């Protein structure tokens, strides 16, 4: 597929002590390429929401900053056009975040560590967009549709729907046993983190399910534990060997599943005993996607259709059990999405 990017700005991500452009920046990073990478987010969003055709020969992407007041960028608008001659399809998305948001968080940590910023002192972040003088070629991201299987839910063992609901353009179904196992594993491991390799598939149905607008459903079918992964407080180390073994198991099961993602936990404490209600519980919530988690998503699972299920405490959730939250790429970052259980 040929990808052409139309962009006439250079973007930089800056941190300052004051929300004032005259203040000397604490850090400046050229993030033009990370802005261009949002073309991939937009493309995958278009494929999964059944708007963009798979297999178009050419895509033109137009990147436009939406300014608060120039040069301060509020959002990035990415517009994709496929094909030409009458069959052209358009899909566009706006982004407030991107890889530069993670770069900025890392910078902030660095500035704290080296003492430039005192603990508790905040810095203001600005995304700056300036008209680019002359040509500056951007490397277009490799746009590839994820593997999608034409089929039925039943061929993956689906029997009936359970609790939960759908995001209309990104329906996610999770095997009830897998969801319960993740919650129980989190509970059993306490403050220590744990997890496993999740198998599943992207399935294209004949018709969208009720209350959805796309035929493509993401199915998480099972979670494989493996002793080679190791967990401690705040960190769960993933064994490449165990992940590779997961792929072998998926192939042996012969249902067309692949390794879709990993499930991991953010801990649940028996000491505080009230993790979902106690605002001062030191454990991170399952709604929090850390920089480590982003690194996993951008290296181990670089496809933008990947989900990240996290089990852990959730402030305000009823009861004394961990909650399973599922995050998906939305708007340039991972955000919790609604999902539905199924019984097999």
């Amino acid at each position, binding site marked *: 597929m040929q990808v052409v990017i139309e962009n006439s700005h250079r973007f930089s991500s800056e941190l300052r002590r004051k929300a004032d452009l005259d203040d000397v920046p604490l850090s400046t990073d050229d993030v033009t390429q990370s802005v261009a990478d949002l073309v991939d987010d937009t493309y995958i969003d278009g494929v999964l929401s059944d708007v963009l055709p798979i297999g178009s020969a050419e895509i033109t992407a137009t990147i436009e900053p939406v300014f608060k007041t120039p040069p301060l960028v509020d959002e990035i608008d990415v517009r994709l056009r496929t094909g030409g001659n009458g069959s052209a399809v358009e899909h566009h998305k706006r982004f407030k975040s991107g890889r530069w948001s993670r770069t900025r968080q890392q910078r902030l*940590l660095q500035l704290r560590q080296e003492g430039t910023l005192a603990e508790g002192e905040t810095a203001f972040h600005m995304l700056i967009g300036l008209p680019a003088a002359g040509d500056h070629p951007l490397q277009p991201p*490799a746009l590839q549709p994820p593997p999608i299987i034409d089929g039925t839910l039943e061929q993956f063992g689906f029997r009936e729907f359970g609790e939960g609901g759908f995001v209309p353009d990104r329906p996610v179904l999770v095997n009830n046993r897998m969801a319960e196992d993740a919650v129980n594993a989190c509970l059993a491991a306490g403050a220590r983190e744990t997890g496993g390799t999740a198998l599943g598939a992207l399935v294209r149905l004949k018709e969208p399910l009720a209350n959805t607008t796309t035929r493509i459903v993401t199915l998480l079918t099972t979670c494989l534990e493996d002793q080679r992964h190791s967990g401690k407080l705040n960190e769960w180390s*993933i064994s490449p060997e165990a*992940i590779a073994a997961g792929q072998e198991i998926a192939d042996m099961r012969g249902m067309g599943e692949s390794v879709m993602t990993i499930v991991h936990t953010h*801990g649940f404490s028996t000491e505080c005993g009230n993790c979902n209600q106690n605002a001062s519980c030191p454990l991170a919530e399952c709604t929090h996607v850390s920089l*480590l988690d982003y690194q996993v998503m951008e290296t181990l699972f670089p496809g933008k259709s990947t989900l990240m299920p996290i089990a852990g405490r959730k402030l305000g959730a009823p009861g004394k059990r961990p909650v399973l939250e599922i995050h998906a790429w939305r708007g340039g970052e991972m955000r919790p999405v609604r999902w539905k259980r199924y019984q097999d």
Partner: protein
Amino acid sequence: MVAATKLKMTDISRQKRFETDLSDALTPRHTVGQAVDLYLDRMRIPGDGLRWSAFNRGVKLDSKATLDELDEEQSEWTVIPEVSAGAKSALH
């Protein structure tokens, strides 16, 4: 044994797929590690100073091995980094 003449590399979820002949940017004299670096660059995956491995059918390949040491059946790889997930926010 028939020597590999092309390489297919993908991430574990098979979403970022790259195929190349061993006569182009890569030649039989390049190493497994160099092939992985090329894959990361072409797929715009941040290397991040992580340790990366290539697996063929669940078996890890020696990153220092040259591509001419591989036979045809070893030419499809899954590329996997050593990473951690978790609540910890600081990268080290």
